[in-house]
């Protein structure tokens, strides 16, 4: 087999690499890979180039003197050493001092702590127990092994329920996570690992996971859906709407809006007509679009804060918001019946850090702790 000279060896390989690397860069960028991944893919293309150059290198001359093999041997070790040291140097690093500081902190004790401090302690418990490994909290975290506790709005649920779910993760499987792997994914030892104080703090932190601008989202990415299209939620919402839910005793939407959607009271919004407009009784707060296009945020606001000087009370100050979202999801079915829908409503994008800040600054929550 005729051997190639070095120039012959790289004559075609270099241009091919240049074209390939450019294509990889562009396609990776178009596909949405962040820049570091683009660099990674191009680097591997470069590795490929080196490998193919090595394959076609002419045979090395046999060693004639001791010095020859000594130099080559040391060169081999040097290549290995430089390669491995460079890899470990160039990959992202962490500062050990951060861990040292964490380890040197006294253990969490919630006795004597007030609301925001308990929540902050809960966040530490959440991080230390590596909950982020499987659960995102809105934009934070990087895995979809478990539900995004932010977009699922775990904070809508009662403290007892959240605590039970932590201690016995098999108690109720989150919708969309019924596959065998997900069913056994969450460890069952938190009851032993967390003391009462840590558990209380953790639940306090989880209770803050709420979104005033979007209805809760269920399912495992990419098969997700909102409560608007969740059959189970709609059934539960019907119970709430008709005043049959024990947890919301005293709330009965059908009294005004009608059991079958025909308003029983003058001025009550007719949910059957998707073209109906938002109330104009609140100065400076009016949505122009028709009912069928109302954003989630408006549904939530109208129900939780009510409409002044009407029987529409600020129900959010009285009843758990979990049930109010369910009732809203059901109310929508009067003008948009579930069985007539051709497609599900789009899953809203995950709220960003800035949006979450906005909720707080604009006071979208009723609870001052949120």
């Amino acid at each position, binding site marked *: 087999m005729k051997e190639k000279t070095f120039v012959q060896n790289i004559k075609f390989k270099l241009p091919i690499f240049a074209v390939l690397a450019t294509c990889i860069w562009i396609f990776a960028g178009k596909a949405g890979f962040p820049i570091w991944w683009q660099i*990674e*893919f191009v680097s591997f*293309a470069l590795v*490929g180039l080196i490998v193919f150059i090595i394959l076609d290198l002419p045979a090395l001359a046999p060693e004639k003197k001791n010095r020859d093999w000594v130099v080559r041997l040391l060169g081999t070790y040097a290549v290995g050493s430089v390669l491995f040291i460079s890899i470990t140097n160039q990959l992202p690093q962490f500062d*050990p001092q*951060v861990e040292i500081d964490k380890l040197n902190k006294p253990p969490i004790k919630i006795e004597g702590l007030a609301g925001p401090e308990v929540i902050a302690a809960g966040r530490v418990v959440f991080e230390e127990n590596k909950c982020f490994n499987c659960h995102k909290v809105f934009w934070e975290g990087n895995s979809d092994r478990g539900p995004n506790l932010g977009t699922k709005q775990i904070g809508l649920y009662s403290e007892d329920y959240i605590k039970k779910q932590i201690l016995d993760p098999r108690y109720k499987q989150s919708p969309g996570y019924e596959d065998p792997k997900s069913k056994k994914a969450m460890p069952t030892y938190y009851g032993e690992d967390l003391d009462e104080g840590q558990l209380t703090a953790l639940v306090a932190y989880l209770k803050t996971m709420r979104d005033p601008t979007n209805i809760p989202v269920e399912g495992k990415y990419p098969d997700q859906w909102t409560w608007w299209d969740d059959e189970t939620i709609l059934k539960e919402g019907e119970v709430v709407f008709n005043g049959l839910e024990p947890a919301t005793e005293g709330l009965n939407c059908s009294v005004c809006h009608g059991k079958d959607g025909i308003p029983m009271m003058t001025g009550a919004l007719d949910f059957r007509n998707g073209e109906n407009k938002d109330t104009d009784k609140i100065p400076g707060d009016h949505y122009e679009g028709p009912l069928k296009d109302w954003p989630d945020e408006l549904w939530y606001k109208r129900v939780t804060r009510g409409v002044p000087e009407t029987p529409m009370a600020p129900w959010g100050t009285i009843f758990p918001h979990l049930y109010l979202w369910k009732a809203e999801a059901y109310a929508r079915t009067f003008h948009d019946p579930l069985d007539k829908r051709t497609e599900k409503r789009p899953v809203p994008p995950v709220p960003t850090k800035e949006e979450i800040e906005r909720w707080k600054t604009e006071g979208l929550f009723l609870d001052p702790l949120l």
Partner: protein
Amino acid sequence: MTIKTRESVMEISKTTRKASPFFTVILGLLLVYGLSHFVPATTSNSWTSFVSGPQLAFADEDDEFEDEEFEDEDEEEEGDEGSSEEESASTEGEAGAEGEAAEEEEDLSYLTDIGPAKDHKYEEFTFPWIGNRKGVWLAAQFHILFASFILGCPMFVVIMEVMGARRTQGVRKAIILSNVFLGVLIGVTIGIIGEIIVGVHHGVLYGMWACAFGALAVSFMNYFHKCMEMRSSILVGGVFGAFMAIILTPGGGEHVNWSGYITAVVNGMVGGMLSNMIMFAKADFKFERLAHEITKVIGICYSFTALTGGLFILVMVVAYKDFISYLLQSFPILFMIAYPTLFILETVVMYIYVYSWDPLNKSNKKGRHIVFGVILNVLGLSLLCALDGPATFMQTPPTPLGELTNISEWDRIATATWMPLNYHRLVGNGTFGGYCVGIIAAYMYLWSNTKEEKEYYDWVGYMGNVIGVGIMIPLPAMGYIFVREIYQYDATIGMYIMSDRESMFMLVQGLLVGTMFTASNIYMWVSMKRIEGAQRFFPFMKIGFVLIILAATIWFTPRRFFATMMPEPGMNEAMVLPDNLAFLALMVSKNTAAFALVTITLINYIFYTIATKTGKIHWGKINPLGIYVLIFMGFADIWLLSWMGTIRELSRMNWHVYKVFKDVTPDKFTPALADAGLFVTEIVWGFFIIMTGIIWLGIKYPKMKKTKAEAPAEATPSVAE
């Protein structure tokens, strides 16, 4: 105890009464005396309780006895209180109280006072330049590298010796034993892979029993010149191996374990096939020479293993005295009896194996030598398993942790990750041994001056690569079950490794594995250039290289480019793969990439094998690049082994024994990636420098001496014939 003694006496009395009543009484008294003095006490701390288990037969008697003793003590205490409270006690009572008070006041400190040393407070020692943790790290890493060598190499040295031995009757007898040993190793490996990939319940047991018994049956029949055809051997191995495996493996309840049975049949067939191949293989002296030369190196490495082991313990005693004391106390029988016994036995057998090579060869007793080799391996593997106990105890101590002191020592050894680590190390050491043979071959090739020597060491390098790569193929599966068990024990440890501070360490591991597979394929490519007609495979192999690069890219691709689970100050939190592309970082993608790497390497190896069978091989004419690739692969493998050890140790976070014994030293944190990378490289350099010396001393130097000794004889004028 008393009842037993009385019964014994009565029994003996009955038999001796007929002879002489006098002697009966004397004998009876002697027995009562003897038994009451020589039967050891059955306390929970006694070593006999570990061996013989709880002695329920005497429990009632002992309890009564102990109760009586405690009652007496209680009465005495009450008496003391009474005497101090009541001034008007009787004279007898006063005297008694005074006597006891005198006893209490008596200074017995001389019995426990160690002297002035009790007041000596030395400053805590810190290793200069590197600190305590790195001091221990260095010693431990050196120890484990040499230990891996002396455990990994003998495994295939025995097989090589068998392949190179003339098939005398004694050798054929010994081959029965070595085939069973090989059957166990291969059966366990195939069984585990079956468990992981297909989910075979008890796959390991089915695999091990079937392969071992298949090998035993076929070897036995082959010894008597029965069942000599390959097909019939496979059949016999499959049927007998499966039959025995089904009998010996615990049933899975009501369901028939078909997948287990199939695993058993396959393993039995493999055992039968290998046994037949080995029993009737044509003896090739090259294998004998290879085995013998490696054994010489093993001998020297053994001394270094002991040396570095001692160093490790000394360093631990200085740097982590509390912890090493706790660990030794947790495993008293293991560290005080089992480990020294095994170590001494292994040393004895190892020296017999090394130094009896030539004498037994000359006296035509090769079979016995092979048997020593198998025993050496069994002892070595037992040592490995024994020390994996404390190692896994540190990582996954048996739960509930509150019961740790109440469970038996065996329960502390057989932790959740004990067997997975045993499997992982067994296969890992085999790979390590293969690559070390490659290094030895490469060195000797470079140091050889004659054509014959170069041809021979070129072949040895080929064998080393075959063994190293061949055994490395199931290695990812072993690593997988180890980490799976860790996750099941406590997901926090698993997350720390895979997603938190060690995530970039694991990324480096991915890169290293990719590098090793690539280098291995380059070696095959370079080797094939010296085989006539092998170039016809090159176009296909080039496609394979493209796929290897692709697979390595996927294996490497991380979910995020920051080194912790959540971004810390100074990190770029935007460096996360978007959700729609995150599948590239999931285990499914990684497993696919690993499977692709393994498959392509296997295909290339098949091409290589076909080329060696169909074309002429110009041994000794390998492109020198191939020799340096061999050394590079060895360097990478040893680096990777050290790196994985680092990851395993650091995964305990700030615990010496996870959630039991906290590390409160200044070195309790995980070191930065760059720091760890540099230190591991330095350790590997140290190991290579020592190994270079050992190879020279073990193989090259004796050859030089021999050549020098022969040289004058050749130079002297010969007598004319």
